């Protein structure tokens, strides 16, 4: 069990991340263009990285850290390939 102060910080930062994720998912659902969705999902990746970082800080463990590397790489490849696809689609 976490100490009380740490628990309060965890709750505050965790709920901020939850609100952020909900906003981003709302934009990804609303669109209106595919590029809006790509930008929103990029920010969702940032929210996920922040969540795993918060988890690592609160628990003092390194088990979540490789996930950060994978998320960074996958987010880049995804947005670049969708951007290329959108550019080709219009011609």
């Amino acid at each position, binding site marked *: 069990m976490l100490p009380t102060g740490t628990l309060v*910080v965890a709750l505050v*930062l965790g709920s*901020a*991340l939850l*609100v*952020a*994720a*909900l*906003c*981003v998912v*709302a*934009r990804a659902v609303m669109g209106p*263009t595919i*590029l*809006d969705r*790509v*930008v*929103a999902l*990029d*920010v969702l990746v*940032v*929210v996920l*990285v*922040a969540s795993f*970082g*918060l988890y*690592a*800080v609160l628990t*003092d*463990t*390194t088990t979540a*850290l*490789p996930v*950060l*590397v994978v998320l*960074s*790489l996958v*987010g*880049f490849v995804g*947005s*670049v390939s969708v*951007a*290329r696809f*959108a*550019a080709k*689609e*219009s*011609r």
Partner: protein
Amino acid sequence: MTAAAALAAVGGAAAEERVVGPVGAVLDVLALVCVGAGVALALVAALGMLRLPDVLTRLHAGAKPQTLGVVLVAIGVALDVRTATAVGISTLVVVIQLVTAPVAAHMVGRAAYRTGKVRRDLLLVDELSRLEGHDEPEGGLPDGCVRVPGGAAAVDDGRTDDDRPADGSTSPVR
């Protein structure tokens, strides 16, 4: 000794030297402050996603936490966990993000411009259209956009036609 064993030995040694006591407590608080700042940046970017009107402005809001926010979170993790493994992985994440995030944002912005998904009534200056020699992106104006009299590309930039090269080329650099 294999490379993996050497890495594990280094990590183990660093773990044993992990700073505790007053200095460790200060580092823990600094780590939480860094992660909190990163979370705040992510929240602001998410609000920008909802509130801002078109792709380019949302890209502008979203690109900031992709670099600064992730850097802050990685610094926080490195300050808190304080092992060689954690510091190395955090550095790797920061380097990857600093290299890839601007490239991805640039490609998304270019695709948005070329496919006509830019709200041209919100633009003050459009230097790309002069550069590429046409007033509208190839896909035409997006739905709901009206043509502004004079056009966004005709914004007065302080130069007259006499200032421009005679061959019709215009430099986007001022």
